[in-house]
């Protein structure tokens, strides 16, 4: 071996170490699970910039012929395009920007009446609507050794609805990094100004104010298991009815509570993880719901595949009836306030190629009415849908 000239390298370790790769990120996750590193991993902004784009197509099934009284059976199609960008700024900050465009077309239920057989049936809203919604959000985040905090501002606009919101979130880690506490608060001010076209609407312009807060904790149970629990509270005030539904009069105040939990267990030999999530929801309109999701995350070399199934069960709002009783102070025939079950089956995959990540997801969502003793409690407009998503993310220094 030839003699090697003696030199000096002034490579600064910390500056260079921020330029890590997909390989070291994956190995870093495995290292972080070891107890020796639990208090060595300080919170830090991402070591790279990231830009991504995602496209989703949402397609509602046509209304069954037997449930239709008048109008088109075809329901909503929605195309969603998302673009995001995130980059570290200095040694302690990051900035992210999100841009989303929703393009909607189709018809929705206008009200529920009685068909010739005396059964509830749907009168649709008439000619197909076309609407476009654009949402922009900016988040700035500050990192310190034991946690991070973020501040978000976003605004969305469509023909008949404008929303403005701000939110703040914080996460902080215990001394041994085995526990993370999270909290968030948000406030939004929305304005609804319905478009008067195919169906009559009875308001010109109304406002809605919403505040919400969340508090949660996650705990590393072992090198292969983590659990979390969280509490959420949301209150909305203002015009909360649906202006495009003929028979819809809701209270001007709505309080919601959620209790959620999750568990993740990694199986070394199988290189996969079991994911279990549950959420309980309760509001002051009388609705309670349960959501349970089971998923299996399978690593395949540096790629992954996740099949999942989600079950949702909801009780009806106090003032819901499949054919609204307009003599009451509050009434609604909106299927989203009825009692129903929903099952979602999906598959989500990621393919990693160097610093590029490709994703694809497909979901099938089906509903059925529950808890009813007569057909007049069943919402005839319950919807089933397909949703497909593809996306690309690029990470770079």
């Amino acid at each position, binding site marked *: 071996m030839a003699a*090697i000239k*003696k030199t000096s390298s002034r490579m600064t370790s910390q500056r260079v170490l921020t330029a890590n*790769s997909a390989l070291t990120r994956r190995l870093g996750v495995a290292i972080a699970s070891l107890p020796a590193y639990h*208090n060595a991993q300080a919170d830090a902004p991402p070591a790279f910039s990231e830009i991504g784009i995602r496209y989703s197509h949402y397609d509602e099934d046509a209304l069954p012929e037997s449930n239709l009284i008048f109008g088109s059976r075809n329901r909503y199609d929605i195309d969603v395009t998302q673009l995001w960008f995130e980059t570290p700024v200095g040694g302690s900050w990051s900035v992210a920007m999100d841009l989303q465009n929703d393009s909607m077309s189709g018809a929705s239920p206008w009200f529920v009446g009685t068909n010739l057989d005396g059964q509830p049936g749907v009168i649709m809203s008439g000619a197909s609507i076309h609407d476009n919604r654009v949402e922009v959000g900016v988040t700035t985040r500050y990192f310190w050794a034991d946690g991070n905090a973020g501040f978000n501002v976003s605004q969305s606009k469509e023909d008949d609805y404008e929303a403005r919101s701000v939110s703040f979130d914080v996460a902080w880690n215990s001394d041994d990094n085995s526990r993370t506490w999270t909290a968030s608060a948000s406030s939004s001010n929305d304005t609804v100004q319905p478009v008067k076209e195919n169906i009559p609407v009875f308001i010109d312009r109304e406002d809605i104010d919403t505040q919400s807060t969340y508090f949660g904790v996650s705990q590393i149970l072992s*090198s292969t298991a983590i659990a979390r629990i969280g509490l959420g509270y949301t209150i909305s005030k203002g015009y909360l009815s649906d202006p495009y539904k003929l028979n819809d009069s809701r209270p001007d105040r709505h309080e919601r509570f959620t209790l959620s939990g999750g568990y993740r267990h990694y199986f*070394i*030999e199988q290189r996969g993880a079991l994911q279990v999530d549950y959420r309980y929801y309760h509001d002051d309109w009388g609705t309670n719901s349960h959501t349970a999701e089971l998923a299996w995350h399978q690593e395949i070399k540096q790629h992954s595949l996740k099949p999942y199934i989600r079950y949702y069960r909801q009780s009806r709002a106090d003032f819901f009836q499949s054919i609204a009783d307009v003599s009451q102070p509050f009434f609604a025939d909106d299927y989203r306030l009825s009692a129903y079950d929903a099952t979602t089956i999906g598959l989500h995959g990621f393919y990693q190629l160097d610093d590029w990540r490709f994703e694809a997801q497909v979901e099938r969502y089906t509903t059925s009415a529950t808890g009813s003793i007569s057909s007049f409690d069943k919402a005839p407009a319950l919807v089933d849908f397909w949703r497909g998503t593809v996306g690309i993310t690029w990470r770079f220094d």
Partner: protein
Amino acid sequence: MGGPARLLFQPPNHKNDSRMILRRVLEMLDELESRYSRYIASSLISQINKHSGTGIYTPIDEETRGLFYFCDQLHHESDGLFDPTAGILNRAWDFKRDETPNQADIENLLPNVGWSHVHIDDRGISLTRPDSQLDLGGIVKEYAADKVVKVLREMRVTRGLIELAGDIATLGSKSDELPWRVGISDPNSSPQAVMTVDLTGACLATSGSYQRFIEKNGQRYSHFLNPKTGQPAEGTFSVSVIANTCLMAGSIATIACLKGASDASSWLESSGLPWLMMNDGGLSGPIATHQEKIPPKEAPQQSGPNLQ
């Protein structure tokens, strides 16, 4: 740990803290060695190896489970080249004598080599083949260096350096003005340093076949053995890597040596970490290209408690 060790640190307060800190570090290193050394009959690794092929599961704690999880990740990221069951191939390759083994000896050992023979579940760990043996020597030394840093941090030390047989982990900087300046050895004239690097809370690990190899008929055979073929990786060279943890740096460097001379560079590039390769062709890698024409102002630290 099978090699020289060196510990430098600035005690937080009273001078008695130094003795207490040193004692804690030595206790931790002894405990790691007693658990993971295959040369100690009562170690956890020896217990696992003793039960190979019997169907008996040896219970393991969370730390050991985490280490095996990391081994599993390294095994897959290296396309099977990193394999803690490959140690038995050293029965055929004796690097203390300049003799190459018979191919038949290697082929007799290969069926007992394979990460798929290692089963881990809630009961613990089991080796399915009677002659399979586990050896965590590829990662335990680097993990030990990181644990020393953890102990120092817990004892409120803010500046320290631990070196275990050439792998270095640092805590903070040497002083407010100076980082830790460490040397990377010349394979031809170790411990002569060919290059120095500045570390602040970072780690440097080196792997190489320049000290253990067989030379026959002008051909050098590295001690990094391919677990699939039982043959040595091509070329003899040294790789040094800098990372936030010694475990990461050492793992990347070891797998580079397993990849062989022709594939090591692309593997090191994919890590995105600073690296240096030394071979007959000279120096290559980001550490080499960042060199400045400045003569070293001071030699790497020589004083401090010697743990050997």
